[in-house]
């Protein structure tokens, strides 16, 4: 509501004061709702409705075919004994904590290179952004299977230099690694945001620093890095949330099994298997809420921690 008032009352009175709207303003407000309608309807039907339903279902035993039966906290208590669930949490955490930092480092490094105003910048920017658009797709996951397969591209290249390859996606010790590489490869989206952030740093800082004889490294650590922290923070929050929800890659690369030996069993994949494979939709709903809480907790911690390291230049 406050956002709406803000919008319709933008040009005139100071905010916060209640007063009667003129006919024109009321009409304007109505129109604003009209424009919001598609999003509001979507929010209610596609997000809020299923959310409420899944919260209810998480307290029930629901097999999809028969009406749900209320079981209280059973689903949540069951998680404490479910070793596969705990394993899937471990896999997911490992994936998030390794692949997100690597991805952001790659994105920042590329952004710094591209920021030097090279020729054909927009071309390179598009090229590097491409994997972000494709990375979550089924087609790329299928391609990944081929590249890292026993007789795939990687092993053929290794064979050229006389190294005998291995079944990268079929071996439990390397399968998750291939998915991490896939995630790191989709660095384009954070890279574009980093680029925009770099462009916003006033050049006068660098000019002043150069005049004082600061080296490039020094310029990076004392100007670029601090001024970029809000962007780093933004990307970090976004990528962590995204990584926790990863599903498609593991689903396609492991053929929906989370294998080999549960080594790519992401939390979301286990949730899917429980809900649609084992008909435990009540349990799957409880898992979805656990994931929500985990992501909310991480986002919260991120925001708290940001006070110590994120620097707003104003």
């Amino acid at each position, binding site marked *: 509501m406050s956002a709406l008032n803000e919008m319709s009352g933008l040009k005139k009175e100071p905010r916060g004061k209640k007063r009667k709207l003129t006919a024109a303003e009321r009409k304007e407000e109505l129109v604003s709702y009209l424009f919001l309608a598609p999003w509001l309807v979507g929010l209610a039907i*596609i997000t809020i409705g299923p959310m409420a339903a899944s919260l209810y279902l998480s307290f029930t035993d629901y097999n999809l*075919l028969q009406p749900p039966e209320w079981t209280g906290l059973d689903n949540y208590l069951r998680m404490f004994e479910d070793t596969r669930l705990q394993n899937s949490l471990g896999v997911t955490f490992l994936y998030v904590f390794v692949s997100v930092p690597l991805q952001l480092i790659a994105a920042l490094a590329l952004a710094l290179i591209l920021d030097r105003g090279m020729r054909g910048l927009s071309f390179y920017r598009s090229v590097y952004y491409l994997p972000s658009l494709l990375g979550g797709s089924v087609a790329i996951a299928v391609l990944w299977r081929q590249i890292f397969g026993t007789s795939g591209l990687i092993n053929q290249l290794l064979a050229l230099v006389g190294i005998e390859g291995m079944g990268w996606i079929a071996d439990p010790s390397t399968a998750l690694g291939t998915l991490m590489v896939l995630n790191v490869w989709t660095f384009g989206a954070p890279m574009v945001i980093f680029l925009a952030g770099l462009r916003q740093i006033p050049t006068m800082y660098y000019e002043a620093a150069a005049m004082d004889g600061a080296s490039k490294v020094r310029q990076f650590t004392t100007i670029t890095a601090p001024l970029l922290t809000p962007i780093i923070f933004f990307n970090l929050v976004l990528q962590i949330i995204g990584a926790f929800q990863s599903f498609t890659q593991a689903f396609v690369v492991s053929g929906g099994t989370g*294998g080999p030996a549960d080594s790519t069993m992401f939390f979301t994949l286990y949730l899917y298997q429980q809900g649609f494979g084992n008909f435990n939709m009540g349990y799957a709903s409880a898992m979805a809420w656990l994931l929500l809480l985990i992501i909310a907790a991480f986002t919260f911690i991120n925001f708290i921690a940001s006070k110590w390291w994120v620097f707003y230049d104003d």
Partner: protein
Amino acid sequence: MKKFSRPARTLTAASLAVVLGLSMGACGNGGSESAGDGNLRFSWWGSDPRHEATQEIIDIYESNNEGVTVAGEFSDFSGYWDKLATTTAGRDAPDVITMDEKYIMEYAGRGALTDLTELENLDLSKFPEAALDLGRYEDGVYGLSTGQNAYSVMVNADLFAEAGVEIPDDSTWTWDDYYEISATISENLGEVAGTDYGALDGDLRIWLRQNDEKLYSEDEPGTVGYSQENLLSWFEHLLHVRDTGGGVSAAQFTEAAAGTFEAENFPTKKTAMGWYWSNQLGALRAATGDDIRILRVPSPSGNAEDNGMYYKASMYWSVSSQSDNQAAAADFVNFLANDPAAAEKMLVDRGVPANPEMAAAIEPKLDESQQTVVSFLEEIEPEVSDSPKPSPIGAGTVQETIVRYVGEVLFDNLTPEEATEQLTAEIEGMISAG
């Protein structure tokens, strides 16, 4: 710079909402609105040749029945069950559903299917009682067997010849012969391994049956039907194949388990022997382009009567209890099950028809490999013992679970003892909930 902090904050709320896109717990709206208008929906799984043949069958049925339309819905096996679960939960299931022995109890037991004996338009009289029993749940018949299958060993005769190994006499071969042949082929061919292990639930069933046990207990629902030592010996048997060099690598095994039929080790000629259902002979010949033969499974004693082989209903025709079109659905199933015009298009792709009249009707139309399958099933008839009942409620993903444990054992992540204990606990956890 400030402008990034605000989006970041609203982002939190927005992204939390996005997370819940995942929690699709309740996608149950919609419903079958067309009330008895003769528009049927029919679902099945399979590969391209089956889709084409089935579409031809639908065309014949539609031209015979003015005003009736049949819309086909098909996918691969694993996607099929996800979709069926969601459409059924949304009360929007297809009218005629192809069922599998792993799921029929699940759906019948939970009221999603119709008792076929109560449908007037469907004539079950031509079906032997044993075939009907395979679809029985409590007092009703909820699935009509499309045809029979047997689990068997497929051998690639071309690779055998290349390795200089003779194809064994399958009425007398033992597990020791199997180990020896596997190891010799691996040794002589290098790149090609002897066997793909055979590590699905079908293989485990065979192993247990050879020891007079079953995968699921039929007397005590919700429990397994085997003793620990026989599951343990199965894992040890697989390790023996690995350690004598007769099998593919553990990585190749798990890679194939995650892939499609065409990418498995036997169809891609990475092994000379593979464990498959009899109706897959034609598809395997097509995939390899080689001379594939079908053999009985090995036995401990060398006596084929002890090999534990059994007939399985390849698939079932079922009618949804949610259908508003049950009379029309029954008529369509009747066409599929009792009309030679349908049988001649289907041939043995869904198993050798359980209706003897249909089996006779298609006989002249069969090509060489289809003929081989039919005579193979006839040959083993004196030896096969009673068929296992369909898997209990909750057993839908037991096959994937077994394969996962085999992977763990082949990679030495678990000892056979640990795998035995954990697999049993997991299976019982699945089937006891039903």
